[in-house]
């Protein structure tokens, strides 16, 4: 078996809801609620789910950009949640992030050179020429030119900016990259450029990815394994092929069925999900999905299903498989 | 605000009484008097403020009156008076048939009541009583219903002049008892006008006293004292007919007013002095030569022309010439910057020095534009190499700090209360007055002796001589630069007649007429 790089256990992140006369806490948004998974070295784990289901929060908690409410994140054998602030800061060299919005994630007042140089400065590379050289190298790596270094973010198109964002993440030679919807803001033709780039880089630098997206096609294309989230919980996780061929969880099934297929002949009669995503501040009792599930049973309304290994390497959290 | 407690018998709302009043009398009419500040009290004995007396002089009467436009003594509520040989007993015969506004009788008991009330209070409560009479009055007794006798411990030279001062207006004992602490808002006297309404910082309304003892007076039905703080705004209000009479007219406006046929100017005879005090405890002003040098540096006529429109005369002595005891033989330091520089050099300041020049933040009758006079002085001092920094504080702080001797030089002035020389020289320059009105900390034993002697004497000729001597010494010591005796200006609409501005600043309006 491949070596495990990251192991997440029972991770929780609750955001307090304040209110009342004294601004006291009156509830929680359970953005991430008891999520466990692992990522092998060199693989890509895709995370999909509807908007607001907690994908970004998971990504941020992993890096402790948000402090987890509970749970452990073991990276390379170290529990990140136990690290001191300074240790964690240094550890960030190993884990990097690519953001969704290429417009907001680059400081508009810095040149590309400065943006790319900063991680090096932060992690103690004092030699200026060395830094400059590495910036140039990295620009070439992500398909930009070294003459771009002096320009400012607003002089680039969305796709180019996303390349800069990726370059920044690569500057410190990390082991793990958490990509939070890196292509959702891009046009189709640009999206494929970036996806290809990510794949190339993975090969070149032996990177491990956690790839967050809501486009099932993209996730399938890039991921080795895929986890499906629903209302802060992981409902199913397995290898990409398996998931798309033989989804277990009713939510995954519905999700797959909802994708419009770019083939006019394939106008299948699909089963549509009823209703909307419930609010994460007030998730349904029992199985969070039971309100929209076509296979809902009595038990689903009461007991929350655990994520169990239904088939080898194929985990699902559903009472249908919980026998 | 202050509710009107109309003393009229009808319990009707004010406006209706008001309307009836205007319709009934043929003369009458309403006069709106615009002034710079509000009164703080309408109990004249309990205040020192000029703005208060402007109103109370029309509400109350004093036992003795000043002349129409001077400070000679005349009949008031007392018709006859006599003084004993030793000058220690004064007997006054009171006018009969006078009633207070509340209907009670004016008589000897009322006079005694008032004096006893004042005597019982301390200096803080009844300042003028304590400063003018204080412990010197031994007793006040009613000999009969209309005769009062004053017994003194020591003679008081200006006794009758003092009695004529506005603070000693006789108030109704009944009203005093009735209103207690609030008497100052509910004045009741015997004067030609009755109090009607007081809206703080806005206006005080007084109305004709129908039962006034002088036949045919007052002419007006109603007088409204209206507060318009800004001089120019006040003049504007006069020009547009919103008010009929204003005081505190800028000298610079004199010509404009005179050229307007609808307006007229009234001059208030001068009973004041405006001066630049030179604090003689502060370096280098402790040096007489320096003080004299500064005196030589000032061109008084230029200041008068520029800021008094000529309506003032240069001051030489610390008292106005109209006051008995004025020494006309004292010569002024002539305007001579060269001389001034010489003196400075002699004093050890050939290159001049730096000092503060304090300028009053508020207009006063003797110096309506303190800031500008200061600016002009600053320039004149600069000519002789003295760099003056103009400093100002709000009025309260200004007086307090100047009083504490913190000012190098300061602008200030004084308007006489009773037209007596003592009220200028002793009050302003005697060493006893350091800490009160002697702001320049001037101290000269010789002067002190002369002034005390004059105070104790009841022989006017002797007193005059003593004061003249004092003025010579003071001139040489130069504790001040006496600047001007101003003739404060008032202005009114051309419709006003019989208005006579009084030197003390409190104008009796009973014979004023207005054509509407």
């Amino acid at each position, binding site marked *: 078996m491949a070596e495990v790089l990251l192991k997440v256990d029972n991770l929780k992140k609750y955001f307090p809801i304040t209110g009342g006369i*004294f601004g006291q806490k009156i509830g929680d948004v359970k953005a991430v609620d008891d999520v466990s998974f692992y990522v092998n070295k060199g693989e890509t784990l895709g995370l999909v789910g509807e908007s607001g289901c907690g994908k970004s929060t998971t990504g941020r908690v992993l890096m402790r950009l948000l402090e987890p409410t509970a749970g452990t994140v073991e990276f390379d054998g170290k529990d990140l949640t136990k690290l001191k602030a300074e240790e964690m800061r240094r550890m960030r060299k190993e884990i990097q992030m690519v953001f969704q919005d290429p417009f907001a994630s680059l400081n508009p007042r810095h040149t590309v050179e400065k943006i790319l140089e900063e991680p090096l400065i932060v992690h103690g590379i004092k030699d200026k020429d060395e830094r400059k050289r590495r910036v140039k190298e990295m620009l070439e790596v992500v398909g930009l030119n070294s003459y771009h270094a002096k320009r400012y973010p607003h002089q680039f198109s969305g796709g180019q900016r996303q390349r800069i964002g990726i370059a920044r993440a690569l500057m410190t030679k990390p082991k793990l990259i958490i990509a939070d919807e890196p292509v959702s803001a891009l046009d189709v033709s640009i999206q494929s450029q970036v996806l290809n780039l990510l794949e190339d880089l993975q090969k070149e630098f032996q990177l491990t990815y956690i790839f967050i997206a809501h486009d099932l096609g993209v996730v399938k294309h890039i991921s080795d394994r895929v986890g499906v989230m629903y209302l802060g919980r992981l409902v199913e996780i397995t290898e990409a092929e398996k998931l798309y061929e033989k989804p277990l969880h009713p939510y995954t099934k519905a999700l797959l069925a909802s994708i419009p297929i770019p083939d006019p002949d394939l106008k299948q009669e699909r089963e549509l999900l009823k209703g909307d995503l419930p609010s994460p501040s007030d998730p349904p009792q029992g199985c969070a999905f039971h309100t929209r599930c076509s296979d809902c049973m009595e038990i689903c309304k009461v007991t929350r299903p655990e994520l169990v290994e239904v088939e080898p390497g194929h985990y699902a959290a559903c009472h249908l498989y919980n026998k | 605000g202050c509710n009107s407690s109309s003393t009229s018998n009808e319990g009707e709302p004010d406006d209706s009484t008001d309307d009836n009043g205007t319709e009934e009398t043929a003369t009458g009419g309403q006069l709106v008097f615009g002034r710079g500040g509000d009164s703080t009290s309408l109990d004249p004995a309990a205040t020192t403020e000029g703005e208060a007396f402007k109103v109370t002089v029309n509400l109350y009467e004093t036992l003795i009156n000043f002349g129409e436009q001077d400070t000679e003594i005349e009949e008031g509520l007392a018709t006859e008076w006599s003084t004993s040989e030793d000058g220690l007993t004064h007997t006054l015969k009171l006018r009969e048939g006078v009633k207070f506004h509340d209907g009670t009788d004016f008589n000897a008991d009322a006079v005694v009541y008032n004096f006893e009330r004042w005597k019982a209070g301390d200096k803080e409560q009844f300042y003028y009583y304590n400063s003018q009479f204080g412990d010197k009055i031994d007793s006040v007794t009613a000999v009969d219903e209309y005769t009062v006798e004053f017994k003194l411990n020591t003679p008081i030279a200006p006794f009758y002049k003092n009695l004529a001062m506005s603070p000693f207006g006789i108030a109704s004992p009944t009203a005093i008892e009735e209103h207690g602490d609030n008497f100052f808002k509910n004045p009741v006297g015997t004067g030609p006008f009755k109090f009607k309404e007081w809206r703080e*910082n806005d206006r005080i309304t007084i109305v004709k006293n129908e039962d006034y003892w002088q036949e045919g007076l007052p002419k007006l039905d109603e007088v409204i004292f209206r507060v*318009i703080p*800004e001089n120019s*705004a006040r003049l*504007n209000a006069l020009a547009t007919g919103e008010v009929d009479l204003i005081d505190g007219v800028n000298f610079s406006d004199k010509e404009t007013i005179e050229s307007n046929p609808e307006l007229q100017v009234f001059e208030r005879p001068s009973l004041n002095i405006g001066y630049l005090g030179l604090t003689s405890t502060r370096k280098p002003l402790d040096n007489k030569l320096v003080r004299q040098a500064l005196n030589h540096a000032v061109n008084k006529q230029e200041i008068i022309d520029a800021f008094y429109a000529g309506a003032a005369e240069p001051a030489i002595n610390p008292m106005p010439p109209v006051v008995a005891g004025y020494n006309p033989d004292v010569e002024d330091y002539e305007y001579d910057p060269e001389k001034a520089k010489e003196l400075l050099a002699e004093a050890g300041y050939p290159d001049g020095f730096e000092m503060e020049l304090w300028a009053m933040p508020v207009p006063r009758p003797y110096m309506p534009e303190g800031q500008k006079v200061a600016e002009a002085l600053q320039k004149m001092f600069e000519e002789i190499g003295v760099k003056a920094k103009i400093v100002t504080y709000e009025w*309260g702080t200004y007086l307090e700090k100047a009083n504490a001797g913190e000012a190098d030089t300061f602008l200030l002035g004084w308007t006489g209360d009773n037209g007596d020389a003592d009220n200028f020289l002793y009050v302003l320059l005697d060493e006893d007055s350091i800490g009160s009105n002697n702001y320049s900390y001037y101290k000269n034993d010789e002067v002190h002796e002369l002034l005390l002697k004059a105070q104790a004497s009841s022989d006017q000729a002797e007193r005059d001589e003593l004061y003249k001597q004092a003025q010579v010494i003071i001139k040489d010591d130069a504790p001040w630069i006496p600047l001007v005796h101003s003739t404060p200006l008032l202005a009114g609409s051309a419709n006003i007649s019989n208005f006579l501005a009084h030197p003390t600043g409190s104008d009796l309006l009973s014979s004023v007429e207005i054509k509407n």
Partner: protein
Amino acid sequence: MLSYTIKRLLSLIPVLLGLTLIVFFMIRAIPGNPAQIILGQLATEEAVAELTKQLGLDQPWYTQFFLYLSDLFSGDLGQSLRTKSPINEEIWPFLAATAELALCAMLIAIVIGVNAGIISAWFQNSWFDYVAMVLALIGVSMPIFWLGLMEQWIFAINLEWLPTSGRENVRAPIDAVTNFYIIDTIIQGRFDQLWIVIKHLILPSAALATIPMAIIARITRSTMLEVMKSDFIRTARAKGLRMFWVVYKHSLKNAVIPILTIIGLQTGLLLGGAILTETIFSWPGIGRYIYEAINYRDYPVIQSGILVIAVIFVLINLIVDLLYAVIDPRIKYN
């Protein structure tokens, strides 16, 4: 909503407390002993000491402060040192005078400012827009004391159309009931006087209105422009609605919150900031009342006067805040 109101009210307490404390200290930092000032220049030292004691000025500051606070809680603003009247009673006519002036000014400012802003936004880049915005810029740059003087010069002195100063014709004074003279004359049915009162109001309120009017016009224009770019306006237009309704119904309501904020802020500022206008037009308002009190070291008046204005200011902002919730259903206060 109720609980939000309560919450907001409670949250005002620290601000008001801090405010009281600052005023309290500042007043005491003003040089000069009030006892001395009250007694005048000639008072003896003992007398000053006596009065100092009487006024409680010899007590430690915290005792003084808590005494003052406890008085405030019982609704007692203290007593003027100068006039010895309770400030509660004394302050009202001044406050009312300023309030009448300020409200009048705000009315002018809002009616003209909001409409000018709307029309400028509606016809962006038209000549109206340019003229209105240049005027608004001049308006915000106007030293109002100068404007007031110029108004006086032109309209009162040269043209003699309007009175130069004051609130009323002192010859026929108004019987103060509410001290809002417009209201007073109306309830007393004296309509000839109403006209006089209005004439007195015109110049000062025009001067006072200038800056808020200009600011409101500018804010209205810019928020309207922003709102009119939004998707729901496109939706409204796609429905075929008349532009008038799109502007005055759909856009204006959405632009109202920033406009309201500015209106609240400006109204509050006018209350205290009217002092210059009050000086020029001899308006017996609260600004002058406090200003004069400063000259007299009338501690209680300064203290309570500033406090009253600040409280009103804070309350206006609270009302504005509560209005947000009325206008915008998204602001759920719970």
